[in-house]
């Protein structure tokens, strides 16, 4: 199912399919391993629109909720 990293429930794994945000933030995500084809495990999102943390390649990457919303993913199960 197509969703994004902000809406993906914590504890679920999904495959990144696209980055659709501003150039800077997306380049940075890309360099940190958040890019199409990568499997991401959503670890948590903080309350009240706080940042989202995912595990990619065994490393944690945190991003603001707005940015997470622009990372499209497909759930695997």
């Amino acid at each position, binding site marked *: 199912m197509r969703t994004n990293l902000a809406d993906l429930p914590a504890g679920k794994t999904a495959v990144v399919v696209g980055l659709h945000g501003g150039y800077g933030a997306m380049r940075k995500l890309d360099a940190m391993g958040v890019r199409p084809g990568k499997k991401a495990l959503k670890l948590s999102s903080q309350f009240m629109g706080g940042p989202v943390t995912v595990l990619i390649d065994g490393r944690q*990457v945190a991003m*603001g909720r707005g940015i997470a919303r622009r990372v499209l993913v497909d759930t695997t199960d």
Partner: protein
Amino acid sequence: MPRSNSPEGEAKGAVFRVLLMGNPNVGKSAVFSRLTGAHVIASNYPGTTVSFSEGLMELDGQQCTLIDVPGTYTLEPLSPAEQVAVDMLEEGDVVVNVVDATNLERNLNLTVQLLKRKVPMVVALNMWDETLEHGINIAVEGLQERLGVPVVPTCAISGEGMKDLQQSLKRARPGVLTYEEDERWHLIGDIIEQVQQVDHRHPTIGQRLSHATVHPVIGPLLALVMLTVSFGVVRFVGEGLIGHVAEPLCNWLWLPVMQGLSDLLGSSGFIHDLLVGQLVDGQVSFGESFGVLTTGLYIPVAAVLPYVFAFYLVVGVLEDSGYLPRLGVLVDNVMHRLGLHGLSIVPMMLGLGCNVPGALALRVLETRKERFIGATLLAICVPCMAQLAMIAGLLREHVVEGFLAVFGTLFLLWICLGVAMNRFTRGATPEIVLDIPPYRLPYWRALLQKLSMRMKRFLREAVPYVLLGVLVVNLLYTFGVIGFFGKLFTPVITRLLGLPPEAVGALLVGFLRKDVAVGMLAPLGLSLRQLVVASVVLTAYFPCAATFVILFRDLGLRDMVKSSIIRVVVAFSVGGLLNFMMTGLGL
């Protein structure tokens, strides 16, 4: 072995320049310290190196310059620090590309971009020690062959592989790799597949803890525990050192000397008062005499240094363990309401040690709005350890209530002011994109080295200012300046703040040094209410001179004037409010 058909990367110019480049937080600063013997601060969070540092290194009996370039993820600069990195690429003869071996794929992204630029380079596979723990196997020879440049496994914190790295510089050569831009990740994936093998491991305790610390419910609870423990340790260690080491030593060793000097100088007179100070009941008192050699030395060395030591010990552990970026994630939400983002908590925490490094750390903030808000909040709401140590000394009987009142007020102020400035300052606060490093057990030698560096820096910078401060106090008294200003500002000092007129002296000296200023309150016999009000006002009305200079340089005239107006208005209105509220409560 490196390919024999590629050209030798030999030194051509007079001064050979070696650049250390790599992603943020891969250990460049640690490699730099190892290769130069110079000590720079390495911490386990991205962005320790904002501006670059230079050092000298020996290479085959020849001196060459080693440059620690700010960390960058790509050669397309995304931030000012990364722009610095890319600009510097032009000036180097050889690049040492420091790579985090536990995170090879992501790191190779920069490596292949460097190779494409055809700069002579070698690759340091740092964090080699951790690859074993993670079950990562890297075929060094294979990688070397694919990249076409020397590849050396290193562990910068223990020093393993550093000799080899230095030797390999002679074999540095430009890369032979070429690729189309849209093929980059494909190429990297291909290399990874060929040279790296990862055994599946169950999550280690560190990884589990790592997930728990960013959990929306457990995380904040753990943070609360962490901060309480940190606070407790700082207090326990600081107070313990003062009570059991610093004070006894001063009383046994230094007091007799000063008493003798006092007798020698005839117990009074200008020189006596300057050096030894006023006698209290015929005795030298380190806390109250205010001589350059008594109080002037006692404050930095005996009253403040133990707390500074305790603080940096705790901060060092927090930094090296990797906890701070996680704390940054947890508080990001709140910080955005103040117009800052989560990682700005780091400058604020460092500021609690000393505002100067706090102010320097503010430079990582990206926009003008963030820097303005950050600087204003730091200057107003963050007391430094020197000041806190002195306040703790004054509050001896009411430490808990007193500190709750002082910190509670400053914290509330920090939130309210931040929210207000966020609303009224134009500009944006970008969202975070943050790589969270794994937890690491702090390496005690690196920890101690960093600690001793920070203590030395404190002594070097604080002692002269404190001595100057004490000198100024004496001059102020001698020339009746304090009496004059005391009268002039009576309405503010006594009516608004409820302090004795002499307290104006503390406000005057507070421009220079906060610890000396608080020390001046000691002989005044203030009540708890007065101590709390004085502590808050002293924190808020002005940062110390050293911090002011840095903030002024970074913010520019206009923003600094704005920030200063806010500061003065806030300091005195909050001081007055506190006074009236606490009086109303019958304190």
